[in-house]
């Protein structure tokens, strides 16, 4: 519920921000008046009509995934793309409704403002949202499976960035002697899985080792509708150059060490 309200607040604030960016662009271009030559009313009405479409485009870029940092290349590309779509839709809608084109500079200003203000707001909102979702009890209590150096680094990173996936417990099939990792208790081996999933109301499970148990962990997660995540290092992929791709519609993990991240070649 906390997550849904936060997300709803974010989406609504983005809608307002888009309309606000276009309103600000109007005043910056026309001056701080309501022009009778280029009336504000129809202009802002078009911005209101286009805003949901712009938001849908932004949603499709997965910008609102709270587990992903806002300050990332993926998000920047997604935001620019959505704002390009937004300004194009605005110009087209205005033309269809009023049979008019208007100042190209106004469109450029609106486009730039929608990018800048949205990016800035997303950076601010990310901090607010993470604070809300991390607050005890966390919105997404996460179970870490496996004590490895990789999992230790992950736990530290999640805590440092206050990622919504908040580790609350660790299980280790090998029976590590560690009692806690960065303040997160090690509750035992995998025989404690069920009681941990139920007792701590786990919403996410991150497998960091014990590859042979992946099917069983996945099965437990499916049964309890828990989101399962797998660290690529469990598969021996440690180069940070992996990603999930589609091969004839089927998901595959792709590692392409030598080519650029956005290369289109095979």
């Amino acid at each position, binding site marked *: 519920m906390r997550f849904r309200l936060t997300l709803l607040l974010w989406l609504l604030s983005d809608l307002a921000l888009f309309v606000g960016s276009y309103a600000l662009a109007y005043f910056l271009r026309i001056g701080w008046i309501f022009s009778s030559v280029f009336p504000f009313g129809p202009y802002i009405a078009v911005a209101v009509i286009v805003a949901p479409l712009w938001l849908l485009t932004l949603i499709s870029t997965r910008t609102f995934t709270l587990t992903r940092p806002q300050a990332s290349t993926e998000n920047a590309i997604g935001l620019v793309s959505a704002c390009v779509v937004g300004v194009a839709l605005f110009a087209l809608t205005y033309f269809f409704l009023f049979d008019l084109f208007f100042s190209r500079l106004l469109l450029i200003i609106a486009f730039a403002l929608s990018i800048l203000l949205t990016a800035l707001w997303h950076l601010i909102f990310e901090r607010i949202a993470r604070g809300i979702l991390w607050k005890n009890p966390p919105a997404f209590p996460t179970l870490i499976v496996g004590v490895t150096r990789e999992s230790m680094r992950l736990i530290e990173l999640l805590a440092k960035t206050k990622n919504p996936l908040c580790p609350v417990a660790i299980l280790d*099939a090998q*029976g590590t002697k560690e009692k806690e990792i960065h303040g997160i208790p090690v509750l*035992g*081996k*995998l*025989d404690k*899985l*069920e009681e941990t999933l139920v007792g701590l109301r786990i919403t996410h499970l991150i497998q960091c080792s014990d590859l*042979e*148990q992946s*099917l*069983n962990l996945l*099965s*437990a997660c499916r049964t309890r509708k828990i989101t399962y995540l797998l660290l690529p290092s469990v598969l021996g992929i440690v180069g940070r150059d992996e990603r999930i791709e589609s091969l004839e519609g089927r998901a595959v993990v792709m590692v392409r060490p030598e080519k650029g991240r956005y290369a289109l070649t095979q």
Partner: protein
Amino acid sequence: MIAFILAGGFATRLWPLTEKRAKPLLPLGGKPLISLLVEKIPPEIPVVVSTNGAFAKLFETWEDTVPLSHRVRMLIETSEKEAQKMGALGALADWVSQERIDEDILLLTGDNYLGFSITHFLSTYKKGIPLLAAFDIKDPHRASSFGTVILEKDNPTHIAGFEEKPKEPKTTLVSTGCSVLPREILPVLMEFASAHPDNVGGLFEELLRRHIPVECFVFTQPWLDIGSFSSYLEAHRLVVGERVLLEPGADVDHAACSGSVTVGRGSKVENGSLHDCIIFEDCLIEDCVLRDCIVDDRCHLKGMDLTGKMLREGTVLERE
């Protein structure tokens, strides 16, 4: 003499197979592992099986299956969780104390597969001298996970030294889960167990420290400590051999089987192939290629290719 079988562990390393059953109750060649052990004990020796509270009912059900020729009695610890368990040696000492045992004890661990004859082992026992069965594992790395036994050079049945899980083992001869503790050493057992309730191997170190002679029975027949997925499969290969073992109500239809395969009660395998697999009860395996897999009760697999997997009870994996 009384046989005392240690079966009170929680076998957390064999999760998920041991999630709802104790390790000695894992099926091996159509019967529970502990049954194979009990059948090797001469019938005139009464057997006490020590287990924990969590698996008590399962052991009681198993007890009903033991042939009447063997006198088996359950000893239930109160512990329901691993953190509460009193330790193997602690459980033994508690039983000795509670029931004022004053006779020799044949001590066995319930999760070991012993290839040798216990009757032969007991025939080498000299009254009053502790006897330990040892096996040459021939691998120093693996030996470091067990208690290692160093024999006297001029008397290879006498133990000169015992090291519990040494980092750098001096020998690959390891202690197995089979020994005789004469009534004379029970006071030492009680004293040692109070300080080290979970260190069975340490008892032999203690005996040697007190200059009490300990004899060794070295055997060459197979021995397996079933503590992991791979050792369980290895024991299965050993017991079942190159054949397909179908339990009552099991059915294999148009499926190619090779190596050691057990299909448990009520399980059905259709099409596909199995190699070195243990399928537990009431499973449905359709068009799957399984290799070195253990599939727990009530799993439903369809169109899957799996290698080296241990599947949890009730797992459903279907590929259209």
